[in-house]
């Protein structure tokens, strides 16, 4: 989404924009998840209205909860089943047990619970709470169309670059439909755009993973870019610095 902003605000500085697992703006559902994360942080007694460093502490529990809910939205149902369904029980549904038996307590019974707890704890010691609040708010407010009569195609009117938009089939946080909206807006603005929807089970996380078709497409696209630059440089008086 940052690259869309660059294509809009700095049209003469971009030759190519690759927009991966994005959306024209966040949906109500996206904002809802961000709000849950923010509420977790701000309602932590250690938050101290954002002045937690004055008290030599930080909202560890809040950050942990924020990360746990965030993490679930990055994965897909199938991805979680695969990750936590290694026990050879038919129809396991990703319900691997941590200690091999159910304890019928509020402690950790399932692998997925201990995984989320671990992810949350690691994150809480590495990420600043105010930064988390600000970044999620920035995402919520992101809407480049606001300055262009709510017509995103007008926002891209001056863009000079080529676009490659990529989405992942099981991404329900930034689903393929949102990416297709970007593509349609670019078509409306008559900009050169390519689009592919990569079949992947890993949810939004897929964009970080070496999925063969995804990697191949990036390689093909960037390979062509590299070739074009090499050709430009080979030409007398050629200047490839613009890229």
């Amino acid at each position: 989404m940052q690259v869309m902003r660059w294509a809009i605000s700095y049209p003469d500085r971009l030759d190519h924009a690759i927009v991966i697992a994005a959306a024209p703006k966040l949906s109500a559902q996206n904002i809802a998840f961000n709000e849950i994360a923010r509420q977790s942080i701000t309602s932590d007694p250690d938050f101290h209205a954002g002045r937690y460093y004055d008290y030599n502490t930080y909202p560890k529990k809040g950050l942990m909860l924020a990360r746990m809910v965030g993490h679930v939205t990055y994965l897909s149902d199938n991805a979680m089943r695969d990750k936590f369904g290694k026990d050879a029980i038919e129809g396991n549904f990703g319900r691997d047990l941590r200690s091999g038996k159910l304890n019928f307590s509020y402690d950790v019974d399932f692998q997925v619970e201990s995984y989320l707890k671990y992810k949350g704890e690691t994150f809480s010691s590495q990420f600043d709470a105010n930064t988390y609040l600000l970044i999620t708010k920035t995402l919520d407010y992101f809407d480049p169309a606001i300055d262009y009569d709510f017509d995103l195609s007008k926002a891209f009117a001056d863009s000079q670059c080529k676009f490659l938009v990529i989405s992942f089939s099981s991404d329900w946080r930034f689903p393929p439909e949102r990416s297709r909206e970007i593509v349609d807006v670019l078509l409306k603005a008559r900009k050169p755009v390519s689009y592919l929807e990569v079949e992947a089970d890993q949810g939004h996380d897929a964009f970080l993973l070496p999925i063969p078709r995804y990697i191949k497409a990036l390689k093909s696209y960037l390979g062509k870019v590299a070739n074009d630059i090499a050709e430009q440089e080979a030409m007398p008086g050629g200047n490839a610095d613009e890229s």
Partner: protein
Amino acid sequence: MTLQNKKPCRGETLMRADLKMIQKWIQPGSRVLDLGCGTGEFLAYLKQKKNISDCGLEIDEDNIDLCLQAGVNVIEQDLNKGLSNFESGSFDTVLLAQTLQTVERPDILVEEMLRIGGNCIITFPNFAYWRHRLKLLTGGYMPQSSALPYEWYDTPNIHHCTIRDFDTLCRDRDIRILHRTVVDFKNRSSFLMKLHPNLFGMNAIYHFTR
């Protein structure tokens, strides 16, 4: 029957002679939408020769990748799901090569092509080609040829049509045919084909508008 399981490839079905014929109808610097653009070969050619603004639709993963390699703008989109995301008049020429017979509603697609671009070009294998007729008549089998290389049970071609069929569609829908050419498997045209296009033409090439 060595042709079975052959992958559809634009390079084979739309050969250079076809390209030559079609490219005459495409204005330099115009906007061209290629529906089912295959490997992107034709758009890449037009880009280089005529400096067109290109856009291709394709669903085959390998073809899409070849388009990216060639620097052709390609969108993964199924023609059967409609083209409502394309604005009316947003392209100068809309091309549909060797794909008409594979879509669910060819008539709706033709209407959509006319809506999106004033100039439309369609090529398709003529089912009434004499060799096809002969195979059906003498053998009683669904015809196979280099234009129709599939077994009946495993073919993308679900709406075969003939030159006469397409002429009728154009007449019924008030579509104006600007050019119509029929060619044989080597993309040659001959006196016989001009005399009896529906019998001797293997591939039909239409250039039309409304």
